[in-house]
């Protein structure tokens, strides 16, 4: 099978029971995506599948054949961060940072569909992503700020 991973074609041969998360972390050593519950309870493994946020621990790898997958490693870079990454840093929206990749990908899916979300819309889009450090108030602010940055640049 072949997927487009962070913009590049990647060939893989996952076993039938392997999840997209297994493929990313264990086969491809892309460790930015986190494994926490491995059963759809926490959102730490969130990635974009054809631009839509999914729990990669609940997504079978083989089902991604021919699809576009984006992970935290492909959201932006240290040199060219995504506005969400800038906003998360500026708003102190990561304490331990373990939930952060999942939070960022969930927010990225939201903002790609809606660059002017209300707080209720942000909460609805993000409440499947747990944060045990309780960074939620700062995450909310960071998503608002990133949305404003995106609207300004028209990106």
């Amino acid at each position: 099978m072949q997927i487009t991973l962070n913009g590049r074609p990647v060939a893989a041969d996952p076993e039938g029971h392997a999840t997209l998360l297994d493929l990313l972390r264990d086969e491809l050593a892309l460790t930015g995506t986190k494994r926490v519950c491995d059963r759809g309870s926490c959102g730490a493994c969130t990635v974009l599948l054809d631009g839509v946020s999914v729990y990669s621990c609940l997504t079978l790898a083989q089902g991604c054949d021919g699809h576009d997958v984006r992970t935290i490693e492909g959201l932006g870079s240290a040199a060219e961060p995504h506005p969400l990454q800038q906003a998360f840093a500026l708003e102190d929206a990561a304490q331990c940072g373990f939930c952060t990749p999942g939070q960022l990908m969930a927010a990225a899916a939201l903002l790609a569909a809606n660059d002017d979300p209300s707080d209720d819309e942000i909460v609805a889009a993000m409440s499947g992503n747990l944060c045990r450090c309780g960074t939620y108030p700062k995450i909310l602010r960071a998503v608002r700020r990133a949305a404003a940055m995106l609207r300004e640049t028209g990106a």
Partner: protein
Amino acid sequence: MSKPARFVTTTVEVEGRTEQRVVEMPAFDLEPWGADAALTHVGARALRVDAALKATGRPGYTTDIRRPHQAYAAIVRSRIARGKVTRINVEAARAIPGVLDILLVDDVPARTRLFNAEITYHGQPLAAVCAENQAIADRAARLITVEFEKGRHAVTVAQATAANAQPVRPGLSNNLLFKEPRTTERGDVIAGFAAADVTITREVRTPCALHSALEPHAAVAEWDGDRLTVWESTQGIFRVRDNLAKALDVPLTNVRVICEAMGGGFGAKNYAAAHTYIAALFARRLERPVACYVDRAGEQVDTGNRPSSVQRIRIGAMKDGTLTAIEMVGEIQLGIGGWEGGPGEIYHELYACPNVRTHETFAFVNTAAMAAFRAPGHAEGAVGLEAAMNALAKELGLDPLELRRRNTATHDQKKSRPYTGNRLAECYDVGAERFGWRDWHRIRRRSKDAHTAPDPRVVPGKPHLRRGVGVAAQIWSTGGGPPSYATVRINTDGSADVLAGSQDLGTGTRTILAQVAAEALGHRLDQVRAIIGDTGATPYAGNSWGSMTVASLTPAVRMAAVDARRALVEAASGLLGAPSDQLEVFEGRVAVRGSERGMSFGEITAKLGNVMIQGHGSRGPNPQDAGIVTTGAQFAEVEVDTATGVVRVVRIVAVHDAGRIVNPTLAESQLEGGIIQGLGFALFEERVLDTRMGLPLNVGLHDYKIPTMADIPSIDGHFLDGADTKANHVGARGIAEPAIVPTAPAIAGAVADALGVDVLELPMTPWRVLAALAR
């Protein structure tokens, strides 16, 4: 004049426990940074130094370590609560391709205490398997079958203390910690109650709560000959090193523990544990790196918890609210191991009262051992104490805030000594102002007396909704203390490293240490980097627990930086041809006072070549004649749906006095985090046990509910300005644990205010709220 002793014995308080320690006296004293000291970096809202790394998913957590040829381990756990292993069948597991090794009790050193044949709780590790990858290891672990003789378990205090109870583990003569209940008393409570005008009694229950850090406990071990390197998600790299060296019988110098980044601890990651030893033992046998991660079920079941409590409280007071006696009889369900971090302590500390008695039964039971969980004991105790205070206020017709104010503790009553600083009264005032506490109560009184204003508890047009407000206070020892060391070195390009044996749990330690070093060095913050989390590279620092890190470590860092700056200035003196006392240092430059002449740090060190400019700092003892505490008050407003029983927290105002705040942004993040964990404790979090089978039922994040973004109220977290110069020369105290203590009691107070009845058991789930309403 004789030289003062270099090593002295002093008292240190950790998580409510007092320890005697030998400390090294610092080589020189520093003038404290007072509240109005002109500081550049300390007190600034500097960005978290690893914020960009975290926002790109690359901080280097233990579970992200990938060593060449790394193998993976899985743990086989007991599925019963009590019994004896008679046989473990491993043949099927061993036959799977990719399985490398299996560890049973006979394969492990006794001092690791791994795989005891005596089963004493559900989830106890019984064996481990190692394989080429995690999937194979997990499959093999499932194929290992354990045969056992079932014993009779006791998972509740009642079961463990029944007349015919068996010991929950071998070697116990009864199932109580210290063999008997612990009673602590000052004054005379009998006389205190006799003198009271009113006496209130309450029985309050708090649940067993689980830390639930998102990053699991994890270790990666690698041997190079007889030297061991372990990457571990830990709150104490040096303690893990010591545990490993002892259990494996290797010299300390052969063990290096690294924790570059960690995904939360909250008290559960203070020691090496089964996964650590399993990784190290497999790695030695297989001569290749081995990772052992605790899976989520294991994480929720066997890595520590906040023990549940029952608190029977009696408080007596005069008509004006002056407390005359406080008594609490408690039962604490410890688990198979544990210590006396019980709810009793805060009853002796928070309010002024001459007569206080607590009587606590700490019972060992056949569930996983408890572990310190953010403000162990105080978070539970505050729930009971504050519920009783609210009931007393109601009985006396007093504003609950006024009742607290009248009973403010002016000194450390347990040890009859003053506090270095305690501005709780100011926290009440500032918090009440920010919350609008008085307005709420004024409107409330008016609506009651004259029906001239709407009752603020009523939501217009929504008769099933009720609003209420509550307040609760907090006290917690946050002095930190020795030993803690730091080294500051200036590199040949003028950049500086601060080395300390601490670790950053997500609290911001890395950032704080760099800020303090930059300040004391007179350097630019972006030129200073904290190197932490590596026992092979840093001097000793203690665990990140007990809200101790900032107060313990920043004085040592400051001293090390001053020491390095002195050396640099001496070197610059020759180069600039001016005496040291005419040189001043600011933002990376040494200049001759009142002239244009000066050199940057880089220019000076370039001239020095490989001469090391290096400073050493150590943490001196705390003052012995004063208590060091962080205090604060939190105010909550809730909305309760009386039809469904759902409680929604509308807003929280928190005001705390923690001395100097080194970085207000990071402090606020941590305060918000503590409040949100407190909200979870108040409303959702509870490990549910099947007491008949002795099994925990909700071992995943689906059934064990922690707050989500949808549960978050508006939070106004605030710290009083100031510096505690009596506590230490940086003026800072701790904040991590104080943040959680008053949240649940403030929410419970608000729910009681809204409903007119108390919900006496946490979490205040819909069914408990409805049951309270039906009473």
